[in-house]
């Protein structure tokens, strides 16, 4: 299996641990991710709210480059990239004005984009293309006894719930269970993490972050698994402020790919786990074999 791969800026910066765990896990499963040549900023949500047309041009350049590779699908792990690229696809389809502007801009750069190439999330690829049975075969160190709260964030299911249910997504739940983990019922799985409000309106943003952490602790989770770099950052980076304001909520937040890496027996040091502010405790000892 071979896919075009758009990492986006997060995976090269704050969310480095995501890529560090994603690539070896995919390799282990025989999935080849070919990084796009000369990709640029996806446009992100901030750009979208300032100038939609320019944001679409920015995103469409990446889509055009991806299409040129001849791959069937474009994979992007960051939820913001995933949303913006999908949104651009929809805008180009629905709005003739935006489509015209984007086409002119792309032509200026000697590019063209047909609008056909699907933009997909690694979670979708893993569960629907690779399959849980294949993943189960690769598990050498089951996560037995580890209680995980599956946290999807908002952007992969809203507004485009393409591969999972918008209200109650379950792909990651099933994936984590395949790894042997105990999935804690977590109805907040698509609630807002605070997004960029943690930086711009900290009182509002951090309260949202706090609720997610507090509720995960209350429900007995050892760790929160996430699929989005911004969610991971928000849930991991503000513990000092959260503790000052509301009291401690000591729970680590890791990428689902990091948990996959652990279950596949990949060395902890290579999965980016030490980049966390709140470190994950060593895995619970496996019950002795009968």
């Amino acid at each position, binding site marked *: 299996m071979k896919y075009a791969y758009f990492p986006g800026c997060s995976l090269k910066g704050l969310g480095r641990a995501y890529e560090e765990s994603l690539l070896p896990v995919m390799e282990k499963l025989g999935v080849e991710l070919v990084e796009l040549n000369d990709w640029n900023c996806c446009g992100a949500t901030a750009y979208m709210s300032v100038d939609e047309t320019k944001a679409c041009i920015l995103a469409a350049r990446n889509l055009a480059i991806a299409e040129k590779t001849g791959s069937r699908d474009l994979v992007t792990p960051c939820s913001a990239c995933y949303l913006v690229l999908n949104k651009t696809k929809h805008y180009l389809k629905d709005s003739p004005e935006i489509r015209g502007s984007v086409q002119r801009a792309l032509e200026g750069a000697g590019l063209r984009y047909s609008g056909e190439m699907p933009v997909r999330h690694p979670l979708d690829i893993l569960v629907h293309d690779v399959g849980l049975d294949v993943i189960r075969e690769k598990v050498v160190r089951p996560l037995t006894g580890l209680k995980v709260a599956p946290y999807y964030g908002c952007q992969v299911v809203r507004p485009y719930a393409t591969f999972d*249910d918008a*209200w*109650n997504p379950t792909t990651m739940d099933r994936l984590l269970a395949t790894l042997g983990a105990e999935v804690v*019922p977590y*109805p*907040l799985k698509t*609630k807002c993490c605070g997004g960029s409000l943690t930086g711009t309106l900290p009182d509002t943003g951090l*309260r949202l972050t706090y*609720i997610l952490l507090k*509720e995960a602790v209350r429900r007995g989770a050892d760790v929160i698994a996430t699929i989005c770099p911004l969610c991971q950052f928000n849930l991991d980076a503000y513990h000092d402020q959260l503790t000052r304001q509301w009291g401690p909520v000591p729970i680590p937040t890791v990428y689902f790919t990091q948990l996959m890496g652990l279950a596949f027996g990949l060395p902890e040091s290579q999965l980016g786990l030490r980049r966390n502010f709140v470190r994950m405790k060593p895995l619970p000892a496996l019950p002795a074999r009968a």
Partner: protein
Amino acid sequence: MKTNLTNGDIRIGFYICHCGHNIGGVVDCTAVAHEITGLPGVVVSRDYKYMCSDPGQELIRNDIREHALNRIVVASCSPLLHEHTFRNAVEAGGLNRYFFQMVNIREHDSWVHTDHAKATTKAVALARAAVLRVRFHRALETTRVAIHPDVLVVGGGISGIHAALTLANAGKKVYLVERDPSIGGHMAKFDKTFPTLDCAACILTPKMSAVRANKNIKLWTYSEVAKVDGYVGNYTVTVRRKPRYVNEELCIGCQECIEACVFKEGKYPDEFNVGLSKRKPIYIPFPQAVPQVVVIDPERCLQLKSGRCKKTCVEACADRQAIDFTQKEEMAEIKVGNIIVATGFKLFDAKRIPQYGYGLYPNVVTSIELERLVTSSGPTGGEIIMRDGRTPQSVAFVLCVGSRDFRTNRWCSRTCCMHSMKLAQLVREHTGADVTVFYLDIRAPGKGCEEFYDKSLKDGIQFVRGRVAEVTDWALTPEEEGKLVIRAEDTLAGVVRRIPVDMIVLAVGMEPQADSQAVRRLFNMSCGSEGWFLEKHPKLAPVSTFTDGVFIAGCCQGPKDIPDSIAQAGAAAAEAMALIDRGYIEQEPNTAYVVEEDCSGCKSCLPLCPYTAITLDGTTQKATINAALCKGCGTCVAACPSGSIRQHLFEDDEIFSEIEGVLTHA
């Protein structure tokens, strides 16, 4: 095409109806009347505001006398509505009622077109066709078919019970067929009824007992209609009687067998208590069940499943020997003249709206679950408690769950506002809890219902207008910890609210039964797009269907409360009685018939007839058609290779001249 008139001097009267603005607002009726004047044989051509009115009919009668008319054409609404009216007028004028043709220029023209000129042209073409056709109409006679006096009532809820009792009290014999082991339906599960707060059981159970006691009612519970043959006045119905493994004649309802069952405690979800309690494999649905006969669940009973049980129930029954593990499903065939379908509704499955957390949070319950909790005969003896045994301090009701929502069902379920207010008052009475009701609009149009709403407001029940967005169990503030939180937009205050409560009640709406399509086909009825059984006319024939002798009552026709269900049940019973007491039905003569000398006896027509009306005469080897069974569908007429099957009112000359009339350009 032969056009010589075999019926002597043809004198046609043509009438076009304005139907107020319904037709007159689109079609230029005067112009049509003028256009028709010039056609051969037309003696009178008039337009009139309301042809169906008395003066309109009088016009026809007078003209027949004054102008010696012998053919009448009326261009107005659908024949479904007024063909009968005008045929009567023609007959009253002294003509054979089939010397008449009706043209539908309302449903087929003015209601569906906006271009006035084109609609008028179309009306002329349709009218011309009828005028050309009516010249060939022959005098025909209706035939009379006797009506079987017995009635089948399908469904033993309050509607079916009331219909059966009404008929039985008038001396008619009734078969009441109910799918479940007891009659009573949804109403048997209710504690009190709105808006009077009288006890549901106190008004229902006497009626249930009356059904059991009435000699004119044959009650078949645990039974389903499997097949319906025949036509109005003469239905043959096959009823599937499921084995209850207890002989109904021998069981006296002492329930000692239930006591003695090898299962010491109830183990399986009790259907009557909507799963809030457990029952044994041998059980009686509820204490007031009618009949008072136990039933054995074959999916759960050890003896029936494995054949290896101590059969302590049989021991307990002792000499009575009512328990019979060898019972098999039986088919019973009955003859009835009329059928009343009162198959009710099913409740909306709250799990279909995942954001309301039903099935996820234990203290999110449905309105029917709360109903069982409030009832003194319910699983908690009438105590409103949460799953952990605590009494709720605060309760919220969410209205329109699965109603008035384009994502689920668009219709209003009509009863949930009042039902929820009733439950809200009972909750306050039983627990003193704070009650908040989230609503879109309060619909309290029934008698005494607005007053009940008023009382609810005065009793301190809080009403918040807005559709609930979601139910969660995560807390934003210390007050919310450990509670369920409702998030809703308060559309009156213009704010988004979070309200923490202990218990949430989802007022689930009504839906057509899961098998309503199969039932519809069984009785040859129609369904609206939502799946409710369709009445013949929404105002004028609310309990009739398009199949004569099949009537509908209660919620199978659409959501309604108990008083409305009873009213419909009574109406359906009266409609059936009107047919029975007349003793016969007039059968339209538009049936197919065989011209014997042309029939080659090829038998092509035999398998085509949907009503098995055609047989092959053993001696003549020719097809014969039973006019009583023929519905005039015309299938055999079209299929007959030798053209030897013809049909009254659809003779070749009639149809060809009609076609000619449409295709002729003025």
